[in-house]
């Protein structure tokens, strides 16, 4: 009853979802009038060294049969791979050939605040026709990325990978090393997407429950349960199909700038260890990644080495990175399959011994529904079994009513209010980091969870001087997103004292997963019992979940702190953090 059949809409939209086999940047290369850095013959350019010349410009592209203008760096989408060496001081001269201000933010890189690339906080932005030279020392290693921090330029293509080679060599060496950068391309103007969401927040949801679903559920579970389930959600005015604000109705999912039909291919010889550096450079999309038939050993998260863990599948939130090592033993092709969390589309690539080989592309999983646990948190005492919790909830609708927080040991003393900015509250959030999230629970595969991530080194500080709780809040109908019920425009900066060690507790009072990114400082994720687990730059918080991490305020200056879903950030889920 909680699983639905895959929707029929995928078929007539086949070309749009899969894209063109030949397209993208290549289709527009003849029109590119960039400087000599544009390497027309090797579109997947890699730049290395200490000094980098980057030029932000526009480029006609064609991913779906329709020509559009992308925002690119050196004529590339994604932007060129930047290869740095740990310990090097790099300088990057960025010239802006756009007609509007631009910027580049080095996501996950620890650097001085004026090098962070956030207009209004770090610097004034790079004016149209102007340039800015970034210069900083790279003290970390691993997989990161860079993107524009100006309006919707990230959505229109300004995103690129960064690989920092460790000073002492790779901890987990591999024979081959590929970046696999995922993103959500749209033929639409992002301003249109944003305006549509503001006017009708379910505009791109093509999986809403229908009369047919009701009949199906009635047939399977009986009319009483089907009605009861509808009653729970509908009374709350919450939608269990609200998995993604923007779906493949608007998006074509790309791997290293290639559509699923374009099929980016990484070559290997049977038996080799292949490192894949997954980067989710999407604006709004969570991907569930697997390589059917191959175990993936996850060796790094957000650039930081972890104790290796072998999985079949992992969910990668917007802006996260995961390094995995696979060892394809046979002389055959494997499909890298990254389906969007809402199961409306996928990015696809291939690992193959020779160019042109392909493997089967699996069907999309059935579209999942959010569970009651996603709405209410820990009421079920940790069990995430849909069937155990979905339909035996007599009386629980009371607790789920806005503002009616249940008395609970961990519940805040003050009742949590709803209002125009906040459409729901979670009185008893769940702390289960071992939940892979909606759509991945009990799917028969070994799925990575945050509980699996363990750093190989010590936390920056074991000390916690103070704790602050931030609620992730929003109003889906009004499409307003915020921290603690206050959008950025109405909020004071969060102030951290230089040198203090803060535990930030995030509680998600919404029905959506939010990838929360703190600039400038690491987010050192804790297990539910307060033990340090892993150092991250972007932390996914699932609906009704409570996640805690430590932040050592060792970076002076003004920093951005926001949800990395681009339209959530623009709609107010953003705060300034001042370290002084």
């Amino acid at each position: 009853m909680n699983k639905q059949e895959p929707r029929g809409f995928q078929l007539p939209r086949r070309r749009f979802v899969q894209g063109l086999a030949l397209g993208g940047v290549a289709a527009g290369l003849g029109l590119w009038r960039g400087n000599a850095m544009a390497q027309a013959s090797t579109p997947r350019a890699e730049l290395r060294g200490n000094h980098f010349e980057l030029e932000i410009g526009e480029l006609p592209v064609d991913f779906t049969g329709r020509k559009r203008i992308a925002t690119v760096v050196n004529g590339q989408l994604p932007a060129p791979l930047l290869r740095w060496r740990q310990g090097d001081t790099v300088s990057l001269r960025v010239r802006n050939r756009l007609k509007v201000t631009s910027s580049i933010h080095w996501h996950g890189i620890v650097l001085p605040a004026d090098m962070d690339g956030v207009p209004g906080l770090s610097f004034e932005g790079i004016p149209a026709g102007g340039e800015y030279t970034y210069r900083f020392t790279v003290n970390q290693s691993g997989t990161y990325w860079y993107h524009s921090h100006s309006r919707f330029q990230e959505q229109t293509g300004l995103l690129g990978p960064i690989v920092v080679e460790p000073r002492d060599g790779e901890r987990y060496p591999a024979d081959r090393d590929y970046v696999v950068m995922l993103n959500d391309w749209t033929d639409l103007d992002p301003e249109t997407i944003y305006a549509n969401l503001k006017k009708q927040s379910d505009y791109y949801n093509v999986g809403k429950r229908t009369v047919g679903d009701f009949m199906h559920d009635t047939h399977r579970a009986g009319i009483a349960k089907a009605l009861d389930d509808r009653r729970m959600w509908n009374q709350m005015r919450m939608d269990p199909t609200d998995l993604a604000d923007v779906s493949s109705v608007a998006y074509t999912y790309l791997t290293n700038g290639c559509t699923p039909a374009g099929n980016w291919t990484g070559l290997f010889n049977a038996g080799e260890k292949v490192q894949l550096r997954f980067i989710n450079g999407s604006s709004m999309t969570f991907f569930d990644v697997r390589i059917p038939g191959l175990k993936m050993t996850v060796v790094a998260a957000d650039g930081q080495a972890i104790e290796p863990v072998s999985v079949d599948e992992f969910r990668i939130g917007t802006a996260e990175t995961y390094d995995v090592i696979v060892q394809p033993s046979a002389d055959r092709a494997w499909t890298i399959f990254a389906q969007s969390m809402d199961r409306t589309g996928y990015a696809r690539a291939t690992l193959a011994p020779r160019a042109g080989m392909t493997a089967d592309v699996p069907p999309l999983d059935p579209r999942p529904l959010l569970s009651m646990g996603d709405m209410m948190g820990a009421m079920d005492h940790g069990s995430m079994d849909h069937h155990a919790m979905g339909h035996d909830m007599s009386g629980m609708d009371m607790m789920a009513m806005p503002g009616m927080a249940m008395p609970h040991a961990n519940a805040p003393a003050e009742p949590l209010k709803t209002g125009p900015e906040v459409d729901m509250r979670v009185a008893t959030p769940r702390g289960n980091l071992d939940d892979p999230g909606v759509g991945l629970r009990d799917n028969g595969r070994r799925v990575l969870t945050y509980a699996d991530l363990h750093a190989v080194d010590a936390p920056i500080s074991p000390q916690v001087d103070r704790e602050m709780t931030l609620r992730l809040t929003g109003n889906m109908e009004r499409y307003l997103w915020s921290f603690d019920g206050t959008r950025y425009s109405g909020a004071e900066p969060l102030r951290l004292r230089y040198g203090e060690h803060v535990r930030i507790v995030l509680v998600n009072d919404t029905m959506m997963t939010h990838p929360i990114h703190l600039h400038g400082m690491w987010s050192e994720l804790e297990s539910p019992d307060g033990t340090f687990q892993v150092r991250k730059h972007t932390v996914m918080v699932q609906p009704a979940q409570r996640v805690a991490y430590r932040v050592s305020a060792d970076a002076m200056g003004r920093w951005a702190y926001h949800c990395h879903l681009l339209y959530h950030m623009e709609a107010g889920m953003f705060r300034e953090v001042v370290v002084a």
Partner: protein
Amino acid sequence: MSRVLSCWIAACLGALPVAALAQSMSMQDMPGMSMPAPHDDHGSTTPPDDAQHAGHDMAVSALPPNDHVPPSPPQTVLHAMSPSQMNAMMQMDDNESIGMLLVDRLERSRSTSGDMATSWEAEGWYGNAIDRLWLKTEGERGNEGTQDARLEALWSHAWTSFWDWQLGARQDFGQGPNRQWLAVGVEGLAPYWFETQTTFYLGEQGRTALRLETSYDLRFTQKLILTPKVDLNVYGKDDPQRGISSGLSNVEAGLRLRYEFSRKFAPYLGVDWTRRFGDIDSMPGMPLVHANETTWVAGVRIWL
């Protein structure tokens, strides 16, 4: 074409990692991937000064130090600026004003008694997330010209999660004398997803009115949507010139089945039942008003 093709194949075949391959091949003698090597040779890093106070981190206190180096302070600091300058620089404004125009009904109708008419119901708003200016209009135009039409201008203020206050004025026109009203109401989403408006009106000569409107979207597919809707008008005084009797004056129930070619464009077919109450047919010169009427409609729903 062939040049484009070869570029693309080069692009999609991983031209990127060639150098990386050469680099990683030289690392073959490193420990295997299943054996995380101790990582304790961080000559240039600054170990955390409080690493000794490992506290409750029993499990991790034995871990080697990390290679984190705090950044140096910024060399340049932005000048102070107003929030609006900041919004402009960030190109991020979570409270910007936007507008929407919804033509919910633009339809041709035919009643069972053979009367043809054209009706409309539209609303537009402009404003930020909390405060908006609304214009609403609804009416019907038949053989005798415009009948029973209204135009409202309202200030709307977000009140709760799902409800807005609305305050403004209404003008009735069409048959009979025009009427002006002050309006106060609530509009929003009731539990179970009922789009609902309730407005109280205060007019000249002590006239009062109450209007209730609610609708629901029932999906047969993602694009084929049936919308039942009920309108109910209550008046405090008779207004025979406009065909209005006091008390529950009329109830209109409709069913419209629309097909959303896109969210913004959906033609529909539907049926309306109108029931009028009270003795309202006594005024000379007024068009005949049926106490009960069934009308078939075909129209289009559009928004921008």
